[in-house]
């Protein structure tokens, strides 16, 4: 909301001049401090000099140029005549104009000099509104009123020196979308008198109706609870809008249109009430406010023909819709340069109705912005009266007395509030006087609830039991006054019955509905700087949950292992699923679709972290890095099959029931937390120490193992086939528990060559993705760590080499060895490690040799060589039984 200082000062009696920088800064600070955030303070008109009021004495048309040019004789009061060249044609001899003399400076530091042009010397320039930064109108020069004093400094004459405040008005503060609202706030802040522009220049009986005025009725009072029409007849449509009004409109960001439209815009800015001017001659029969009927259409002022929705709120006449209520007028009844009789409409429309309509038609306007935020329902008769009076006075017409009116009386909102409620919210004692004063300043009527302070146990309120509404009673809470404020010693709820205030909110503050709103008024006007700081109280928290701690630990473990954490885009597309080679029925193709995605190319929410991290990998490769390993923690989104398609909107005047909460939950997708890692290039770079080691499937699987080990879970790694991994280089990571239950945690390995090509990644890029929700759930279920007994008898080491068919997974051999050793009495296989894998001539085609070191220990004795051999043989025998392993070359 852009508002010039001069306009605000017209209604708030503040003594600050536009060139008083300190005063302006203070005013700006006060606006922000009361909740009207000033986004910019723009001094205007201060950079103009040397422009004076001049009279055009004679106009000579020059010919022979590419466009018509005028050579004008002009004079200012000194009798001295000058000649200027002018390209505009919208003036005649005798008109008064703004003349920039040689040496003048125009906005932007643009200096005017005498110069030769079109074969003549031009001693200055006749200015247009745009050249003076008071409007966009560049079609012609500015013709001034005939009484503009010759030779006067134009800046002074037109009051151009001003300051424009751009205020960011929050959605709750509809009242601040007007000079009226902002000036009132300023008057409160400065504690100076405020003149309400809604009270200025009204007829004696603002509600008097007259059959002379165009008739109006409301068909649907949920759409509009009040509408007022007034008429002006016989205006001269060619009357120019007064210069001062044009300047203000321009500075508020409004383009001047015509007198009638400018007057309605001016009053909308001043009062906050949107107004509409109809050409009476183009109305057909009585005006009716109603909802649209199926199939109705309306061409709005922006020349768009709109198909109307049955919920749309319309101004209609017998010809059909003539205006989208409170949003935009229709072209058919628009005032034009031939409109002599004008009907002014002012109404109070449903805020929600206008909001929906404006959203539906993607049509926001100054009017709809105000209606959505709440307009004073008492304004329509007043604003319309001011409009007709102003229009008649300026345009030479006659006001038709009275109005035509439909609707109902709108009851003000009454709020009962404990008198010390603002104190309880702020943690500070304001006292009754301050609370009442502040509420009255914003326009509330404050009364005391009868009997509310009567039963105070300390007797301080005794005798007030029969207090009538509106009568002041003894102050029931200590009022320390602004100079001596104290934090309440007790912040708790006040169980004692205290004084209750009955507060009637002013019509211009539809945002005041609750005690909390009233408390905020008191607190913000007194100033947030007064609120004390109370030291933090210790509360009994239990710290992070096990899952939360584990997540942090896993993140650190991956980073410590060389992976760099990234945060990737969560948006995806069916194209990504194709690039991942996901089969048609893959669950990951079932994705949450967005109604208004950021990009139409990515309308889905990710079901896997992989495409995002692949793209981030590619970006890093594109920036010149070749050895890159990345990881990401993030949610993926998996719609539940059979879930209700729509989440209900529950009531808010009570807590939802368990069933209602469950219904909301059922409609939401599953959102498990995943971790993914990807790596390419060298896992160990080459260097002076020797050759590097390229990153591969082992590293990706090891990253997955690291996550599972760090989570202290029992798990197995199994060969699997799962897109987007290489079918021969893909491992499934499976969590198991002692009861034999298993959960798939995810997959790891080298990516499928086609996936690598589709995402433009280097060959052999490897990746893993695990479901952390599964992992943390399993980890959560595990009890506390039970460390092993630390037996101290000597370790016995045995190496075995086993020959198995190549297809037998090493993990199976290892499992069998461990199982066999475990069955061999009270000898513990303390560790088992694979130290060699051999394929070649000595083991035969289709076989491989796996060499293991087995370390045995007993709890209570040194193992004999016989016992160790026995345990080893039991392990090997089990491996032979389970996997067909044959021990190679006997024992070591």
């Amino acid at each position: 909301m852009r508002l010039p200082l001069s306009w605000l000062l017209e209604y708030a009696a503040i003594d600050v001049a536009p060139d008083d920088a300190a005063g302006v800064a203070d005013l700006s600070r006060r606006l922000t401090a009361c909740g009207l955030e000033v986004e910019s303070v723009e001094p205007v008109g201060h950079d103009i000099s040397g422009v004076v009021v001049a009279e055009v004495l004679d106009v000579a048309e020059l010919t022979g140029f590419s466009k018509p040019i005028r050579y004008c004789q002009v004079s200012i009061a000194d009798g001295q005549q000058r000649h200027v060249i002018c390209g505009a044609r919208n003036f005649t001899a005798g008109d008064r104009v703004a003349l920039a003399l040689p040496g003048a400076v125009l906005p932007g530091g643009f200096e005017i000099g005498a110069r030769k042009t079109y074969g003549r010397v031009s001693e200055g320039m006749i200015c247009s509104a745009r050249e003076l930064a008071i409007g966009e109108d560049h079609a012609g020069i500015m013709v001034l009123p005939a009484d503009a004093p010759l030779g006067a400094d134009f800046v002074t004459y037109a009051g151009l020196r001003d300051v424009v405040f751009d205020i960011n008005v929050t959605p709750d503060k509809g009242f601040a979308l007007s000079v009226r609202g902002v000036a009132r706030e300023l008057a409160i802040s400065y504690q100076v008198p405020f003149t309400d522009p809604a009270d200025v220049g009204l007829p004696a009986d603002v509600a008097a109706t007259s059959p002379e005025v165009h008739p109006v009725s409301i068909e649907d009072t949920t759409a509009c609870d009040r509408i007022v029409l007034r008429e002006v007849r016989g205006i001269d449509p060619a009357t120019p809008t007064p210069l001062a009004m044009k300047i203000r409109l321009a500075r508020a960001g409004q383009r001047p249109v015509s007198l009638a439209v400018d007057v309605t815009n001016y009053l909308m800015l001043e009062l906050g009430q949107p107004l509409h001017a109809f050409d009476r001659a183009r109305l057909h029969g009585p005006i009716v406010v109603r909802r649209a009927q199926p199939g109705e259409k309306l061409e709005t002022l922006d020349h768009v023909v709109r198909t109307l929705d049955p919920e749309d709120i319309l101004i209609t006449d017998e010809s059909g819709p003539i205006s989208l209520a409170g949003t935009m007028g229709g072209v058919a009844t628009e005032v034009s340069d031939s409109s002599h009789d004008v009907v002014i409409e002012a109404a109070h429309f449903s805020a929600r109705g206008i909001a929906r309509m404006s959203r539906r038609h993607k049509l926001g306007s100054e009017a709809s912005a105000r209606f959505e935020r709440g307009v004073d329902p008492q304004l329509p008769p007043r604003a319309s009266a001011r409009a007709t009076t102003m229009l008649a006075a300026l345009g030479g017409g006659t006001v038709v007395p009275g109005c035509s009116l439909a609707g109902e009386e709108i009851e003000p909102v009454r709020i009962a509030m404990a008198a010390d409620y603002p104190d309880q919210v702020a943690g500070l004692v304001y006292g009754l006087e301050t609370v009442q004063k502040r509420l009255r300043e914003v326009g509330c009527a404050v009364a005391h609830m009868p009997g509310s302070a009567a039963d105070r146990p300390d007797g301080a309120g005794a005798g007030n039991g029969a207090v009538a509404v509106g009568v002041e009673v003894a102050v029931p809470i200590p009022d320390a006054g602004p100079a001596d404020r104290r934090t309440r010693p007790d912040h708790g709820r006040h169980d004692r019955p205290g004084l209750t205030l009955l507060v009637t909110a002013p019509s211009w503050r539809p945002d005041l509905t609750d005690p909390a709103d009233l408390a905020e008024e008191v607190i913000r006007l007194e100033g947030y700087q007064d609120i004390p700081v109370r030291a933090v109280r210790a509360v009994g928290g239990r710290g992070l949950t096990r899952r939360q701690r584990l997540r942090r630990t896993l993140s650190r473990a991956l980073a410590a292992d060389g992976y760099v954490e990234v945060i990737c885009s969560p948006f995806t597309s069916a194209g990504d699923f194709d690039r991942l080679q996901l089969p048609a029925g893959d669950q990951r193709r079932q994705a949450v679709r967005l109604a208004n995605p950021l990009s139409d190319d990515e309308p889905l929410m990710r079901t896997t972290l992989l495409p995002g991290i692949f793209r981030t990998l590619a970006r890093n490769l594109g920036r010149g890095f070749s050895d890159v390993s990345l990881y990401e923690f993030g949610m993926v989104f998996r719609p539940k099959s059979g879930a209700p398609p729509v989440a209900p909107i529950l009531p808010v005047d009570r807590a939802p029931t368990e069933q209602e909460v469950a219904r909301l939950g059922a409609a939401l997708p599953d959102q498990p937390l995943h971790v993914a890692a990807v790596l390419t290039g060298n896992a160990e770079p080459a260097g002076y120490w020797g050759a590097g080691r390229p990153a591969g499937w082992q590293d990706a699987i090891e990253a997955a193992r690291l996550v599972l080990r760090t989570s202290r879970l029992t798990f197995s790694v199994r060969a699997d086939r799962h897109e987007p991994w290489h079918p021969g280089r893909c491992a499934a990571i499976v969590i198991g528990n002692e009861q034999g239950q298993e959960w798939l945690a995810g997959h790891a390995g080298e990516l499928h060559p086609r996936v690598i090509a589709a995402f433009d990644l280097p060959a052999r890029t490897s990746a893993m993705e695990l479901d952390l929700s599964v992992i943390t759930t399993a980890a959560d279920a595990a009890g506390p760590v039970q460390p092993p007994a630390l037996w101290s008898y000597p370790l016995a080491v045995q190496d075995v080499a086993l020959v198995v068919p190549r297809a037998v997974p090493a993990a199976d051999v290892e499992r069998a060895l461990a199982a066999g050793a475990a069955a061999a009495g009270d000898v513990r296989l303390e560790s088992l490690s694979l130290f060699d894998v051999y394929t070649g001539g000595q083991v035969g085609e289709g076989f491989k040799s796996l060499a293991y070191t087995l370390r045995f220990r007993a709890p209570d004795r040194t193992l004999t060589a016989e016992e160790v051999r026995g345990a080893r043989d039991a392990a090997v025998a089990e491996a032979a039984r389970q996997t067909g392993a044959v021990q190679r070359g006997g024992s070591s």
Partner: protein
Amino acid sequence: MSAPNKAYDPVEAATLSAGELQRMQADALAAIAAAANLDELKTARLAHAGDRAPLTLANAEIGALPPAARADAGKRVGAARAAVRAALVQRQADLEAERDRRVLVDEAVDVTLPWDRPMSLDGARHPVTTVGERLADVFVSMGYEIAEGPEVEAEWYNFDALNFPPDHPAREMQDTIFVAGPEPGERSGKVLRTHTSPVQIRAMLTRPLPLYVVSPGKCYRSDALDATHSPVFHQIECLAVDEGLTMADLRGAINAFVEAMFGEGLQTRLRPDFFPFTEPSADVSMQCHVCRGASAKPGGEPCRVCRSQGWIELAGCGMVNPRVLVACGIDPDRYSGFAFGLGIERSVMVRHGVADIRDTLEGDVRFSRAFGMEA
């Protein structure tokens, strides 16, 4: 103990003469001194202190002396042998030290040679994660617990329960990304959460009172990506609901938080703002942690971090709107609450002088690596 019972032999006894013993000692000392290394010293030890060494043999002959001469000869032989032993010990120590010096010099390496063989040196966590954890930990240390919620959220949690009335322009403040409905144009009642505040509702509906929670998480808005806006970003928000909480408690929590995160003694400032779920609402600015406000004073050095404003806008806050308590089944006559939230990316940018939010989401490894494991 008895001495060997030998008859006096004047020839053998000649070796025990004072002159002869002196010569033997001098020979021994000279040989020890001449040993250039430990091997030569070993040879010298055998020759002059070994079983066949002259002094050893001389010692054996003492028993052959007449009893009157034994004490005197014993004393002289003992002194000579002690001098040789001492010289051996000393020379041994000197030669060992010299050997050690030589070996350690020979084995010296260039310790500045790079050893970037294991990639693990380059791993790092994202600062949004680590700063987010730090932010959360400040609250956890005050006794708050971390609460989390889904990113695809029901509209009721994201808006209605937070006192965003249907069709109110307040909803338009947050450019919302909606989940598509069953048919085009139909609503789904689901959104990508626009803030972490719906977690407040979930916490109030499920946790016992009093309630102190902090909720970090990812949020979404259909903002255009530029240097300060990202459609995907992270917020962290604290919520306290208890008996008798006031704005003074809110300010206390804010100050404790700002001091823990940005530095001791930094002042904070509240200014009125509007959030539907708090009333009153305020935005929080803190004194610039770099210039501490000096840049805004006349003649102050310009400050890049606060653009010489002296203050940095940090967070939004307010007292929980009683309507929100009602929607969560909490008695607003008994309980009050406050909430306080800020952007994690914004915190990273402010705290670490990052000028462009895009650096936090491009995934360039250089960015995370600059932060390492902790921020």
